[in-house]
């Protein structure tokens, strides 16, 4: 932020203080995530920096917690479950949500506000309430402690994200492009694949990513309705933290931070591509 040339001396001081405050807030936001990365390479089973680590003695660092992770059948099984449940519920949420978003962005959609509020509600209702309610209901209809039950529950939780991102993409969609394509001689199929799809895809994919991360990170519902066969990564972490937090959890945490960096980069890439396609930025 540039300081205007007419700024007084007091303002300049204030401006510096302001930047300092912002710096501290950024440190607060990002610092904790950075602290655990080196800690996960600790050779000792402690949660803090050992003397050897501070002095950069190579003996203070080791990969043993990563090794622990990759040789533990419980963790590997949990990862597998997380991916099975995450991918299945993402697919379901993306298909249902995208189709619904197409309807919602129609000019003629009746009771749009109410329906939208309803579709977003799984994001707003506290997870513990959804989890308790689903536990009662899914037990009754034989879905508790099954993969199908967990997948359906996570689909419900992921849907708002898909609906929000896809409707946002569609609302900025310029319908004259379709007419332009038609007038230039493209048939409807060709128009859909060559014009509509490329413009909508970034929104659908980022909605799907949100849905996936929601499922991948979800503890409470799984805690209530999953059986031991559906133990996911977050559950494994949760019980680990509650009992004794071994540094293996820090190794997992580090890998998850890297995963979120990857997702974030993908999302940023999609956003830029979307803007470029819509001609919003010179790209």
């Amino acid at each position, binding site marked *: 932020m540039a300081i205007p040339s007419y700024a007084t001396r007091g303002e300049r001081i204030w401006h510096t203080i302001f930047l300092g405050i912002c710096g501290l807030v950024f440190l607060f936001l990002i610092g904790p995530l950075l602290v655990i990365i080196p800690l996960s390479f600790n050779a000792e089973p402690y949660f803090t920096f050992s003397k050897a680590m501070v002095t950069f003695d190579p003996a203070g660092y080791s990969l043993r917690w990563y090794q622990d992770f990759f040789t533990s059948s419980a963790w590997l099984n949990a990862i597998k479950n997380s991916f099975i449940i995450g991918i299945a519920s993402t697919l379901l949420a993306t298909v249902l949500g995208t189709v619904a978003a197409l309807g919602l962005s129609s000019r003629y959609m009746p009771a749009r506000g109410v329906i939208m509020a309803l579709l977003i509600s799984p994001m707003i209702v506290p997870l513990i309430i959804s989890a308790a309610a689903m*536990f009662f209901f899914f*037990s*009754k*209809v*034989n879905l*508790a*402690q099954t993969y199908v039950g967990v997948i359906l529950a996570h689909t419900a939780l992921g849907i708002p994200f898909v609906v929000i991102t896809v409707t946002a993409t569609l609302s900025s969609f310029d319908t004259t492009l379709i007419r332009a394509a038609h007038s230039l001689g493209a048939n409807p199929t060709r128009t859909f694949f060559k014009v509509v799809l490329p413009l909508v895809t970034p929104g659908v994919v980022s909605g799907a990513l949100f849905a996936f991360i929601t499922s991948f990170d979800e503890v409470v519902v799984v805690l209530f309705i999953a*059986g*031991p066969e559906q133990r996911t990564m977050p559950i494994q972490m949760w019980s680990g933290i*509650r*009992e*004794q937090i071994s540094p293996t959890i820090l190794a997992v945490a580090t890998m998850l931070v890297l995963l979120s960096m990857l997702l974030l980069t993908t999302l940023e890439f999609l956003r830029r591509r979307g803007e470029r396609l819509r001609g919003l930025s010179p790209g």
Partner: protein
Amino acid sequence: MKAIIRKRVLKTGITVVGLSALAVAVSAHAQQTLNIVSWGGAYSMSQHEAYDKPWMEKTGDEIVNIDRSGNALAGLRAQSQAGNVTWDLVDMLPADAMIACAEGLIEPLDHDELLADAPDGTPPSEDFVDGALGDCFVASIVYSNIVAFNSDMFPEDDQPGTIEDVFDLENYPGKRALLRKPINNMEWALIADGVDRDEVYAMLETEEGVQRAFAKLDTIKDEVIWWEEGAQPPQLLADQEVAFASAYNGRIFNAMVTEDQPFEIIWDAQVFELDGWVVPTGKLDKVSDYLHFATDTQRLADQAQYISYGPARKSSSELVSTHAETGIEMTPHMPTYGPNFATALQKDDLFWADYNDELTQRFNAWLSQ
């Protein structure tokens, strides 16, 4: 680990001979998968070694261990409500078993019909210790709630030894880790306050007694860290986050002998209780053979090689030998061993069945003050 396996194989070799008669009896039995619910950790491991491995070898059955005993009653209710009971056998506490039995969630058991006689022919109803056989329940172990301390945190010539010491911040300073429930804490508070062991529960039925227990707990409240998972107390003691911790005696034993931790158990005023099997409704035919096997004299004695919980059969006590991994003598580590047992208190399940709801709410309110 290898040593255990070798020992296990040798041992099985011997027992297999003795079991051949039984093996013939069950040979008609088709291979199946048994879903068995237990407590996890060292305890499940001991069951796995003592019961499951020989059983799987003998019958070819597959055994799936599920660590859900902490929430077993909720799980049974949910499954029975759903009409889809997936658990075949559940390890739970007698107090929970009483409730589950009254709700019809688990099968009533005819113990003399179902269970094995002692080697000398004593029927189960006489061979099991008092209170081990409930309407729907058969105990396998006697375990104990005790307070342990880290001996490194006290001078060698002044180590704590009684339950009063746990409440004595002046002479034995340091944090205490206690279970975040009224059970055991209320009993210990009264005993430490001078109430006679035999009168503890009668006292707790009165408002005055409850107040007295809370008043005693108040004296250490600021120094208490409350734990909820059985794995926490040994961890907290090992990290020296606390000086004392209430715990299940088996967990402390494991930390002492296999991890060489400097822990000592205060056996004074141990609150002992039983733990054992219940059969979810409709599963009796499927698991009766396994149940017969897993509760016989030899199996219960074998289990004591892996964890310091006392067998619930009198006939097993004589067979208790040494710890499988370290070879130390197990008898002195058992809750039922004479000197340990002198001032023991048996948990009153009927009392807790009635007052747990009320006292827990009161306890939580007291905690959040």
